């Protein structure tokens, strides 16, 4: 009788299968005792865009009520008006002026005191009062920038301002920040880190805002009204509960026109308003 399958091959097969079974058993024990059955995932957050609108409820300047006593008329001189920013095209003229330490943005046709903005140029604005024209030159020392458009076909040019990046000007209850400043820091996180530092405030396992650990003196961030020890709780109404949320706000800052920060200073909660020019 011809032997097809030798007993020693069967012996080896048993050894091989036994070895494989042993290895599988060892791995099974390791898997049950030491290895987790499921991984760790970052929970998905429902994305919601911060809802923040600045609404001007009184667009039209209503006349003062007759009950009030008439204020004495003080004539404004053109010298009292300082031009710190100008945007001029054939169709549009928008200027930023400083009048009595308060900044104001005017469009063509709008007035500041008795002076009406009627035109402009690459570094000047033209005001009219009583039929007489006054030319106000851009104040180089306080200038936040000028943008003009030439004739058709030419692209707008931004003349170099004497200021390094832009200015932060006090407005009426808010601070006016130049766009170039915002754009600069939105692209230079490291430079921002040299001027301001913040750490998350932990509340259990979650974050309850970001505490400012340092602000470089005389830096642009010091001019924002923030102080060391302040806790930034929310931005544009959105609570900052995670690093992801804070970074999302940071990434949107270069397209924002308004920013409102809710901060806690000591036991007091306050709101800091910013407008980007």
């Amino acid at each position, binding site marked *: 009788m011809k032997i097809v399958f030798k007993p020693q091959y069967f012996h*080896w097969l048993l*050894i*091989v299968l036994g*070895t*494989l079974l042993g*290895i*599988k058993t060892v*791995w099974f024990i*390791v*898997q049950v005792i*030491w*290895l*987790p*059955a*499921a*991984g*760790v*995932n*970052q929970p998905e957050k429902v994305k919601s865009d911060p809802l923040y609108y600045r609404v001007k409820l009184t667009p039209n300047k209503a006349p003062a009520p007759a009950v009030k006593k008439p204020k004495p008329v003080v004539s404004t001189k053109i010298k009292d008006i300082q031009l710190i920013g100008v945007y001029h095209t054939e169709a549009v003229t928008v200027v930023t002026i400083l009048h009595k330490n308060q900044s104001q943005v005017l469009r063509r046709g709008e007035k500041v005191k008795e002076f009406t903005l009627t035109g402009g140029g690459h570094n000047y604005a033209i005001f009219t009062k009583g039929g007489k024209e006054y030319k106000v030159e851009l104040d180089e020392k306080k200038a936040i920038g000028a943008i003009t458009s030439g004739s058709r076909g030419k692209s707008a040019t931004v003349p170099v301002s004497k200021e390094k990046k832009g200015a932060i000007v006090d407005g009426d209850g808010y601070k006016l920040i130049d766009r170039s400043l915002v754009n600069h820091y939105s692209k230079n*996180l*490291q430079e921002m880190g040299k001027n301001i530092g913040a750490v998350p405030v932990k509340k259990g396992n979650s*974050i309850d805002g970001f505490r400012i650990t340092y602000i470089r003196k005389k830096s642009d961030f010091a001019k924002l009204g923030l102080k060391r020890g302040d806790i930034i709780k929310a931005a544009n109404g959105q609570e900052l509960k*995670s*690093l*992801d949320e804070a*970074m999302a706000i*940071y*990434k949107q800052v270069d397209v924002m026109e308004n920013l409102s920060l809710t901060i806690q200073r000591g036991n007091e909660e306050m709101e800091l308003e910013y407008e980007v020019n």
Partner: protein
Amino acid sequence: MQMVKKTLLIFLVVWLGVVWFTPHRELYYKVETELEKQGVRINEATIEESIFGLEIHGAEIYFKDARIATVEEIDIRTLLFYQSLTLVGLETDSLIGINVDKASVVHSLLSPLSVTLDGNGSMGVVTGAVDLSEQKVRLDFIEAKDISKIRSQLKKDAQGWYYENSF
């Protein structure tokens, strides 16, 4: 000769058994658990297990709850004496600003105390090594391209830009 054959056969069977039955997915989960202790989390769209490793698709890497990178594909291969990890399509957050087309990390028993790194992407071509005995990592940017965002972390010598750190 017969003894040698038998020994080789046993070695092959044991090697094949160990590699084949390795619970790759669960080992990956263990790595995720350890990374979570450092604040790193990975979300993956799919995990495909094979005999010699894992393929992870659509991974999102988070560090302290902030998403820092996405990876199109992570390929992990282990042959006991040779391990490799290949990343394809790594895109970091705009703040980090580095995109890696392909990167590979290789460890071999031939040099057990060294891990080699290779990659190419927006930063150029990078090669390097991790010395496990001296606990040092060095990356050489052979053809440095867009390294503006990471330049502050780099040093320069006669050969060009490089990154060196101890851990």
